[in-house]
């Protein structure tokens, strides 16, 4: 029988009451169809649009975050780290030192995430070593500075001036052998700013001028840029 129809049966069936949906029902259904036609078809499309928008927002936020963080990480981890042990000027306050320490902390935490290259990793490692000795170094520096300020008020003023204009002070080679302590401070400053080639030149010149000048471990570390050897 498959799809064969019985014409007599079909004829009888067609003669039954001719049912038609009422106009009101037609109107309701067509109104619903028209209303739906102006909306995006289906929940799936809506869902995918929302998911795409959320992904885009997340990607933009992540990019902005990375962009904001990158300068800190790329600003030579050594610079921010050495900034912590930068000789404090007499005017420096304790909160500032705390802020620097925090900055060093954050740099130490961020470096592995955003600058995973070996150089940065080495810098981070140096940072850690330096950081552990920072309080002691700061105490030593403050002590030395106080002594110098008492003995050489003018030298202290010069040093403050040099700190205020680091590029000129750090860039200009000394015309004549200067006070060795000041010279070392200047070399340490160069090192802290990442100007290692200049620091190396100055250090060589310093050693030539003062071959027997005793260097403390902390000072050696500052001017050479390497971790201090174990305590003697």
């Amino acid at each position, binding site marked *: 029988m498959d799809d064969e129809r019985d014409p007599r049966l079909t004829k*009888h069936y067609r003669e039954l009451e001719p049912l038609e*949906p009422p106009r009101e*029902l037609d109107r309701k259904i067509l109104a619903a169809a028209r209303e*739906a*036609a102006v909306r995006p078809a289906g929940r799936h499309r809506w869902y995918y649009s929302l998911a795409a928008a959320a992904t885009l927002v997340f990607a933009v936020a992540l990019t902005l975050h990375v962009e904001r963080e990158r300068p800190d990480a790329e600003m030579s981890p050594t610079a921010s780290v050495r900034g912590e042990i930068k000789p404090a000027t007499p005017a420096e306050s304790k909160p500032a030192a705390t802020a620097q320490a925090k900055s060093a902390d954050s740099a130490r935490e961020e470096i592995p995430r955003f600058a995973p290259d070996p150089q940065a990793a080495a810098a981070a490692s140096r940072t850690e070593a330096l950081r552990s000795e920072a309080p002691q170094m700061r105490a030593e520096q403050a002590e030395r500075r106080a002594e110098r300020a008492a003995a050489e008020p003018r030298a202290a003023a010069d040093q403050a001036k040099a700190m205020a204009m680091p590029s000129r002070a750090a860039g200009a080679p000394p015309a004549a052998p200067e006070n060795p302590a000041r010279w070392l401070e200047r070399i340490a400053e160069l090192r802290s700013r990442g100007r290692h080639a200049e620091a190396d030149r100055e250090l060589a010149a310093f050693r030539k001028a003062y071959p027997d000048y005793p260097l403390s471990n902390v000072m050696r570390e500052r001017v050479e840029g390497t971790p201090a050897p174990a305590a003697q």
Partner: protein
Amino acid sequence: MEAPDEELMRAYRNGDAAAFETLYARHRARLYRFVLRSVKSRAVGEELFQEIWLRVIESRARYTAQARFTTWLYTIAHNLLVDHWRKRGLTLVALEGDEAPGSSPDPADQTQARESLERFAAALQALPPLQREAFLLHEEGELSVAEIAAATGSNEGAAKSRLRYAMAKLKAAMSDG
């Protein structure tokens, strides 16, 4: 040349409301009769009819023209009817002669029926739901046996058997006159 149903449905899926109006006009009367002759109450039938079209509207994004639009439409109708029958406690799993009886007309009315058309209508109402559905899908939906099987989620053998039994009973009702 008229656009095929499948093309109209795709156009509606893409936001063309006029395509739906054409589609609706083409199928409204047949679907309405199919539904109303599958249930006892006109009010329930109209409610189901509206629900079927609302399902079509809501499901437009998922529509794929892999099968005929008519098969898809009557599949939706079948699913809603099955829900309706189940709510009313009708058993739908039995086949052929063992199938649960439909809404039997009053025998007194049946014997008093003088018109063969009335007997035919009464016999149609007396068919078990799945047999009646198979017959209505065949007549109103113009579905083949394979399409009836697809729309009702059964196999071709069962669909063919239901249709055969339905047609035999209806022919018998006509011959009684």
